[in-house]
Every structure is written in structure tokens, then in C-alpha cells.
């Protein structure tokens, strides 16, 4: 019966985006709008000695210079809670400009407000700050001897030590082991649109135009920070130019923009500069991992020991959950995972596209490849031998798992069985060629509370569906239009989805690849509720051809309700409403997700990836020629946007493997805080990417069986590439990114 869902529909906002008609949060034009610019700390640790605002205050166009001595104190800093809960979601339990203490470089110390952006930027340079330095730790190397085992990480949700069975015993009985140490560089998100908020007060009511993954997260966080009622805040999120996690949590700038607007009695726009994006909204932490795998002679894992060491901030015990997915990827009874942390002078790290999964699975999937090599096993075969039929650790059944099919199809597409397994055999001029593969997996996590949408149909048979979610470039507005059209039985062009506004029915932030699943659930519930309401009305209406019919026998096509068996018996929504003198009808839909604490099932999206890489060992160059990914995402809502998401993820994975890394300067600042120095792939780097999905039906995760595709495809790409580099050259790499100097 579904007609719109799955179709490769073009983006509903595509035209507005490419023509520039779509307005991003830093483009909202308001009368009297003025500009705020942050002044941030040069040093990673110490105190402000003197903060001299004399020149800045006298610069042309300057309206205010706010800092710890004159910033009005507000409410309290909310707890660090992932925004998937739908509540306040502060990215770190620290709010700047409250005192003179400096915890990290890039910490906001002052906000300059002026009538134009250029003047505000210039005046920001005129705020003269002297510092009292105290010793800083900003890297693993500097803090290694102060590392501690975390009691809990990730906002308290994950224990610092996770065990099952007896890893030591499992290793003792292993016929073969690998024991490998890895270093992964810190990463930054680098969406094209830098974070920005435009704040407007009307009396004691505040409107924020905010670039975020979760408008309600902004609302609740700012409400607590400023101690104002949530009912007095409205957050509008129109167009968002990407996020990759840096807009998943709420950082200081929305609240600072509101404080600045209150101080100058004008609407204020606060946009982070590209450089400030490196210290204004979190990062993926630098990390070291050590993994020990033991296997019997047949390649069956007898034990996994996986330890991680990473710096966190002084405020929060945060580590991305690098061990989680890797721990439940393969059947293995003996497991030990440990997170160790170092308190460092950085901000609290945060969700960064594929937070943890990408890093941990790189380690697991390359280590498994080395183990396969030692055992003289095919890399695909060792994965099949350790295939987890149930969820490791809990023994729960999977809600759905198409991984075996993914492996099989991917291997066919890559002609895996035809490759010469020995490394360094294939050449193309100066290039050595190799193939590698890896598994992908990403958890399906329900949101922390009810998700809502409202459906309203007008007497002409057109409908508007409203929900507060943000579309930050993924295509969610488009797929929700499809879901709504099918829910109501309307053609696509009769449905408009309104979104990105906290005045609309509540949804949590679209994070953790959960957005499509949870918002589609709410939209589905709302639209089918409205459909059922109208069918019930028709059945009860004596003048309706459907009077007295069994509602269960009625279906809706193209806005016309009719008997399933006798399509000529029926009438349109419009006829029904007009006859009843109703201008519209409306229904609110609420989806109550399964408990975050467990559904009784293992819920995961899976995939298999294959990469062909060319290596010029003389010049140290690695160029990816082909990427093949096959995934089991459950229901695909739109083949085109799904393909784009999956391809984007794989390219990020390539980027993780070969390019991305933020480097700490000895002075304790990120040294490459620009798009010129922080490398992400350009078009010329993009290989031939082939993507397929395998059919999987999932009845557990949400009403439409949508498992989520936002991030899974980034998992495993880097490992497949590193494994391919080995196959090309015979050399293993344990540092990311794999740079020219490490290949030379």
C-alpha cells in the first residue's frame, strides 16, 4: 500500500538550498540586528590577569563588551545528558565567562557586540588580555602518567570497565593471539555551516534561530542556563548546513547570544568563526587503544581485550564509546573492555560522526585481519566463523540482522574470491593495488521519551504535518513528507511538512542515527491516526458511501477512502469534510519508544565493506579506487537520500583513514584549525562508490522498521582501507590518519 516511501524523491528543500533562498541561522534578517563576536582564550590553562576593554569599547560601532565581570549571572549549567533524551543537553558541564579561570584554549572570555560583523571582529581584536599561565596537559603523551580508570563515561551511561567471561583464561587457551597498539588522531566535525544563533527578545520572551540537530535541546538548555521558563523560549531551526555531531549537544553560544541580545536590547547574531568551530562545540578526542585477540586454531575468538586511553576535560568524564560496538560484533565469551581517561585542558569531547564506533571498529577490524593472516584464514571467513547469531553479552536475539547477506553480496560485487590473498602481488604502473574488507555496525537506540507530530488536513484534501525536528542536511524533511503522504494516503504534492520549530509537537534531537526512525514513527502515528479518524467519520456518516462499512476494510488511495475489495465504493477526504462543513481535521500522534534500557533484543544496523586501494610506496601516496558497501538498514524511506547518507558516511570513513587529524600545538591549542590545514576529502579524492542494501524487516525498533543509516556506513571503511593497504604493500598501519610519512 506504501507508494511514496522508498521512492528516490528529490529533496523538498533542494531548490531553496541551491538557489540561496533558504535562510540559515546566521542569515536571518531582522530589523535592528547587530553582531556578536567571541573573544577566546589563547592559553589552555591559567587565569585572566587583566582584561582590558578600553580600546574595544571605543571602537566604531561597538555596543557592548561582555565578560566575566559584567555578564549577568543566570541559572545553572545543566547536566551532560545526550540530546537523544529530549531534555537539556549541555555539551559540557561548564559555562564560560563566570570567573577568570581558564580551562582550555578557545574558551570564550568576552563577547563583543557591534553594529556590523566587521566592526565586531575588529573590536574583538582590541580586547587586550594578559594571562597568568599554569601548567597544562593537552595530549595523551603529556598526561599518560596521570591516567585513571573511569568509573563511568559518556554522561554516566557506560561503565569504565566491562567484562564478560574471563578474558585472561580465554587468552591462555588461544592457539594464536595478536596484541596491537593504536593511535588515532583527534577529529573535528567541520560541517560547511559554522554554528550560529540569532537571538531576539520580545519582553521576557526569547526567540532563538539556532543551527542545531535538536531545537528542543537548545530550548531546554538555554532555559536552564538563563533560568527562564521553557514556555517563554521558542527555537527556530530552518536550514542547517551539516553538523556531524557538533550541533548534537548545546554549547555556550546560544545562551551567550541571548545574553548579548538582552544587554544591547537588539536582536543579536552570534556566529562562530571556522577557527572557533575547533574549540566551540567539542571534538572527537585523541585516543590510544590496545587490543588483544585470542583465537583457536580454527579462528574462533577465545578472548577480546580492548583498552582505550583518551583525554577528557576537567569537567566531565567523557570518552566516546569506542569499545561498545566492537564488543558485540563477534561471538566471543570472554571479553574485557576498559576506558582510561586523562584530565586535560581541552573542552569536553563530544559526539563526532560515528562516535566511538568508527574508532573502535577500526581497531577491531584491522586486528581481526592480522589475526586472519596469522591463521592463514581468509578475512571474510574469520568473520563468518565468529558470526554472532545472538547479541554477545546479553544473549538476546537480534531484532533483525542481514549481515551474512551483506558479506555475501559485497564479496560478489568485489569479486573477493578472485583476489590473490598474498600481499603485494598486483601492480598498475607505480601503484600497488590491494583489496581489503571489514564489517560495519551501528546501534539502533530509541530516544528517551515520547515523539510527537500533528497532522492536519484541509477541506480541499491537502495536508500539513508538523513536528519540531530539524533537517540538518540529511533529507529528513523529504522523507517525512513521504511517510506522511503514505500515512494519509495522499499524493506527495498534497502534503507539506513543517519542521524545525519548538512551537511544533515535541521531538528529541535527531542524533545517533535515530532521527529517521523516531520522527517517522511520530509522523506515521499522527497521519494514520488522522486517516483512521476520517474513516471513522465516514463510516458513521449516513450520507457517506462508506456508511456502516467495516473500517478495517477501508483503505485510502490518492486522498480517496474506499473499500479495499470494491474500489468504486468510497469518497474523498475533501467530499467528507466539505459535506460536514468542516474546514479541516486534525490529529496529534505520539510514539512511545521502547525503553532505552533494553527491548529484549539486540538492535543494530549492519553492513560489509570492501575497498580497493592504490598505493605508491615510493611517494607515500594512498588513493582509494573503489569502495563497496552493503548494508541492512531495515526499511529505506527514500532510496536517493539513503544512498547519499551511506555514501557520505563511507567518504568520511575514507577521510578518517587517510586525511583527518587535529594536531595539538605545543602551546596547547589546536594547530590546524582551518579547512586549509584540517584535511577532508575533495572531489578528486572520491573513489567509485557502490552501495547496495539488503532487505531486512525489523518489527522491534519502531513502527516502520527503520534502523537508521546516518552513521553505520562510516564504520569499517577505514579498516577496509587499511586492510587493503596491507594487501597492496604487506605493511600494517596502526596510526590514523595514515599519512605520506607513515607510508614512505
Amino acid at each position, binding site marked *: 500500500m506504501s507508494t511514496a516511501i522508498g521512492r528516490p524523491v528529490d529533496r523538498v528543500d533542494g531548490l531553496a538550498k541551491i538557489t540561496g533562498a533558504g535562510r540559515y541561522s546566521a542569515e536571518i534578517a531582522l530589523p535592528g540586528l547587530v553582531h556578536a563576536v567571541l573573544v577566546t582564550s*589563547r592559553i589552555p590553562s591559567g587565569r585572566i590577569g587583566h582584561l582590558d576593554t578600553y580600546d574595544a569599547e571605543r571602537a*566604531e560601532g561597538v555596543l557592548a563588551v561582555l565578560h566575566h565581570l559584567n555578564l549577568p549571572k543566570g541559572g545553572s549549567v545543566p547536566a551532560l545528558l545526550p540530546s537523544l533524551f529530549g531534555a537539556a543537553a549541555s555539551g559540557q558541564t561548564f559555562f564560560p565567562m563566570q570567573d577568570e579561570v581558564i580551562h582550555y584554549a578557545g574558551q570564550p572570555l568576552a563577547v563583543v557586540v557591534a553594529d556590523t560583523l*566587521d566592526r565586531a*571582529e*575588529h573590536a574583538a*581584536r582590541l580586547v587586550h588580555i594578559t594571562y597568568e599561565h599554569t601548567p597544562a596537559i593537552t595530549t595523551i603523551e603529556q598526561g599518560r602518567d596521570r591516567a585513571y580508570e573511569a568509573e563511568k563515561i559518556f554522561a554516566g551511561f557506560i561503565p569504565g570497565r566491562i567484562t564478560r567471561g574471563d578474558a585472561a583464561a580465554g587468552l591462555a587457551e588461544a592457539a594464536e593471539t595478536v596484541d596491537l597498539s593504536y593511535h588515532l588522531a583527534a577529529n573535528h566535525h567541520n560541517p560547511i555551516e559554522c554554528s550560529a544563533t540569532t537571538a531576539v527578545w520580545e519582553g521576557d520572551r526569547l526567540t532563538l534561530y539556532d543551527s542545531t540537530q535538536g531545537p528542543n535541546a537548545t530550548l531546554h538548555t538555554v532555559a536552564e542556563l538563563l533560568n527562564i521558563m521553557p514556555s517563554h523560549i521558542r527555537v527556530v531551526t530552518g536550514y542547517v548546513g551539516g553538523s556531524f555531531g557538533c550541533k548534537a549537544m548545546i554549547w555556550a553560544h546560544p545562551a551567550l547570544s541571548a545574553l548579548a541580545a538582552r544587554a544591547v536590547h537588539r536582536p543579536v547574531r552570534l556566529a562562530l568563526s571556522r577557527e572557533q568551530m575547533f574549540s566551540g562545540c567539542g571534538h572527537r578526542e585523541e585516543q590510544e587503544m590496545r587490543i588483544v585477540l585470542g583465537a583457536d586454531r580454527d579462528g574462533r575468538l577465545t578472548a577480546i581485550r580492548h583498552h582505550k586511553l583518551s583525554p577528557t576535560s576537567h569537567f566531565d568524564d567523557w570518552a566516546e564509546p569506542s569499545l561498545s560496538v566492537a564488543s558485540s560484533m563477534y561471538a566471543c565469551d570472554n571479553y574485557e573492555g576498559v576506558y582510561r581517561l586523562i584530565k586535560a585542558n581541552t573542552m569536553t569531547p563530544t559526539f563526532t560522526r560515528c562516535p566511538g564506533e568508527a574508532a573502535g571498529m577500526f581497531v577491531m577490524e584491522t586486528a581481526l585481519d592480522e589475526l586472519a593472516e596469522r591463521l592463514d584464514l581468509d578475512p571474510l571467513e574469520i568473520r563468518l566463523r565468529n558470526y554472532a547469531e545472538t547479541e554477545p553479552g546479553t544473549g538476546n536475539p537480534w531484532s533483525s540482522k542481514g549481515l551474512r547477506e551483506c558479506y555475501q553480496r559485497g564479496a560478489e560485487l568485489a569479486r573477493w574470491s578472485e583476489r590473490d590473498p598474498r600481499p603485494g602481488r598486483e601492480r598498475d604502473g*607505480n601503484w600497488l593495488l590491494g583489496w581489503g574488507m571489514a564489517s560495519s555496525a551501528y546501534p539502533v537506540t530509541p530516544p528517551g521519551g515520547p515523539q510527537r507530530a500533528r497532522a492536519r488536513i484541509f477541506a480541499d484534501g491537502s495536508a500539513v504535518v508538523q513536528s519540531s525536528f530539524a533537517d540538518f542536511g540529511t533529507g529528513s524533511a523529504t522523507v517525512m513528507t513521504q511517510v506522511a503522504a503514505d500515512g494519509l494516503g495522499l499524493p506527495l504534492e498534497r502534503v507539506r511538512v513543517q519542521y524545525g520549530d519548538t512551537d511544533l509537537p515535541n521531538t528529541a534531537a535527531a542524533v545517533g542515527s535515530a532521527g529517521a526512525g523516531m520522527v517517522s514513527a511520530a509522523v506515521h502515528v499522527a497521519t494514520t491516526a488522522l486517516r483512521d479518524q476520517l474513516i471513522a467519520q465516514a463510516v458513521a456518516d449516513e450520507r457517506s458511501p462508506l456508511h456502516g462499512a467495516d473500517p478495517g476494510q477501508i483503505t485510502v488511495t490518492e486522498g480517496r477512502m474506499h473499500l479495499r475489495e470494491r474500489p468504486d465504493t468510497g469518497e474523498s477526504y475533501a467530499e467528507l469534510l466539505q459535506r460536514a462543513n468542516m474546514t479541516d481535521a486534525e490529529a496529534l500522534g505520539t510514539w512511545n519508544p521502547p525503553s532505552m534500557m533494553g527491548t529484549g533484543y539486540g538492535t543494530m544496523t549492519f553492513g560489509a565493506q570492501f575497498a580497493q586501494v592504490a598505493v605508491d610506496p*615510493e*611517494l*607515500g*601516496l594512498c*588513493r582509494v579506487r573503489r569502495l563497496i558497501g552493503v548494508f541492512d538498514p531495515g526499511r529505506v524511506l527514500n532510496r536517493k537520500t539513503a544512498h547519499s547518507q551511506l555514501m557520505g558516511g563511507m567518504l568520511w570513513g575514507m577521510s578518517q583513514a*587517510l*586525511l583527518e587529524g587535529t*594536531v595539538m*600545538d*605545543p*602551546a596547547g591549542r589546536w*594547530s*590546524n584549525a582551518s579547512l*586549509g*590545514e584540517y*584535511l577532508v*576529502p*575533495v*572531489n*578528486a*579524492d572520491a573513489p567509485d562508490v557502490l552501495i547496495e542494501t539488503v532487505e531486512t524487516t525489523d518489527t522491534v525498533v519502531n513502527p516502520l522498521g527503520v534502523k537508521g543509516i546516518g552513521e553505520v556506513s562510516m564504520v569499517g571503511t577505514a579498516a577496509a582501507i587499511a586492510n587493503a593497504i596491507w594487501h597492496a604493500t604487506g605493511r600494517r598501519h596502526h596510526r590514523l590518519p595514515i*599519512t*605520506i*610519512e607513515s607510508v*614512505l
Partner: protein
Amino acid sequence: MRPVSYSRVRDVATAIATVTADAGAAYLAGGTTKVDMLRIYAEASQRLVDINDLPIDHIEVQPDGALRIGAMARMNDVAMAPLVMERFPVISEALVLGASAQLRNMASMGGNMLQRTRCTYFRDAEASCNKREPGSGCDALTGVNRGHAVLGTSKHCIATHPSDVAVALTALDAVIHVQNTGGHHAYPIDDFFLLPGGTPQREHPLNHGDLITAIEVPALPVGRNSLYLKVRDRESYEFALASAACALRLENGVVAEVRLALGGVATKPWRARRAERALLGQPATRESFARAAAEEMSDAVARPMNEFKIELAQRTMVRALETLAARGDVS
């Protein structure tokens, strides 16, 4: 950004007079370097004199066969000029491998000669940098210096010269033509780019108000068998970690004529004269190429983060020579 004023001039004499008369003025060509410099406070001009209307954008052959490129010719136009592609593929390739298509459409050849280093400390107005603020020190010496130079460095500055096309022009013995209120001057390109020594702030011999009018490349038949090889982390849109501009002529398998210059590894576009000398008269083999390349790098000074460049530069030279040698005796 600091407030700046802006004006547009239509003839060379007015341009020179306007900038010369005002110590706070500077030429604005494509603006792809200049505007960045102002935005990041690495330079402090108060007045921009736009020279985009000056009639100095021709690409033409002189009676003696030399190629004359007007200072305002756009990088892309030069790269795509059939004349350039045919006679000096190394120039065309160096241009095409630089920046991005959008930038190359704006950026001028004169501006390219005067682009500033990508050293992050130079670009961070609050860091210590002898080039930006003489005598303030050099944070790059102990900082993140993976991209920095290993040739031509001093204890005051190790910044890499970023230009690609200047490397090709250096290999070809180009001449930079300059005009000022006193008249016309011509600088052989190797004298135009200065080593940092104790004065890293002086990158070229120009005085305030001097206008580059043209770049001239002498007629050079060996230029037809030339190439530019650029090695970098990603495939496009990145400065070189190491690059080589090379032209080669063999006679009976022996090097009869060679031009070699390096980019990405030196404080100025680096003419590899030692390697050239070592190559002349030698058989065109991998061994003699490697020996010459090693000879060129024998005085290189590296820091821990850029040590790989010494090896990489050699391999880049060898690859460039091998590639040209394999094409045979084309000239």
C-alpha cells in the same frame, strides 16, 4: 577586519603613483591572498588600490621566442593557453595543480609571486613570527612544522614558499619585470626570491609601490619535455609537501640538458643546481637520478615533524626525472 579604503585605477602610472605616495596602500589584484592577510591581521594595509583594470594581462610570444605573461593574467588563463601548454607544460601543470578552479579564475600571476607563506604561526597574528614581526621569534621552530622547509632555512625562519608556478618559473630561468616611479627593472627569478637569513620579513627585493608588470620566460626548447610533479596528502586543493618542476633532454641515453626546481621543501622556489650539475653527462638511470637527488638534499636541515621531506623530495625528483626520461628524447 580593520577598516580599509578602496579605489580602482585604470593605468599603470596612476597605480604606481597612488601606492607609492601612501605608505598604507597596497595593490589589490585577485585578492585571494591579500584579503585573507587583512582578515587575519597578518598585514595592515589601510588602502587597497585595485589593479584589475590595468592592461597588463596579455600572454604573448616575443620576437625572440620568449613567453611574456602579464602580471594580471589569471592563473587559469595562463594554464589553458595553448602556447603555454605546448611550449612549457611544466608551467601549465604547476598552475592546474594549484589552488582550486575558482581561485585560479581570480588569482593573478603577479599576485602569485607575492603570495605569503602558509606557516600557521605567520597566519596567527598573536604568535611569535619573525617574518610578520621582525625580532619576535619563530614559534614554528618548536611548533607544528610538518609543512615547513628543509632547504634554505635559517634559525630565524623555516617557512616554506608556497607557490607552485614560481617553482616552474624558477626551473625555466624566468625574469620578473617591475615598474616603479624610477622606471623599469628586471629581476632574474632566482634573485627575486630571497632566503630568510636574518631578515625573513624581506621575501623579495621590491620596494613599496613597485608594480610587477610581467613575467618573461626565455625561449627554451627543452621546456617542451617538462612536467610538474606535486606530492600532497589529498589529490587536489592542497599545497605541496614536495614538488618538482623538471625539464629534460637526453642524448643517447645521457642527460644533455636538465632543469630542476623544488617546491614545498624550501624557503624559496628552489633551483636544484647541485642535482642539475650532478646529472649532466650522466646516464639517464635511476641510480644517477637518485645520486643527484641525494646530492641536492645533502645540506637539508629537518625538524622531527618534517624529516620525511628530505627523503620525499629525493623520491619526487627521481620520479619526475624517470617520467621524463621514459618519454624519450622529445626535443
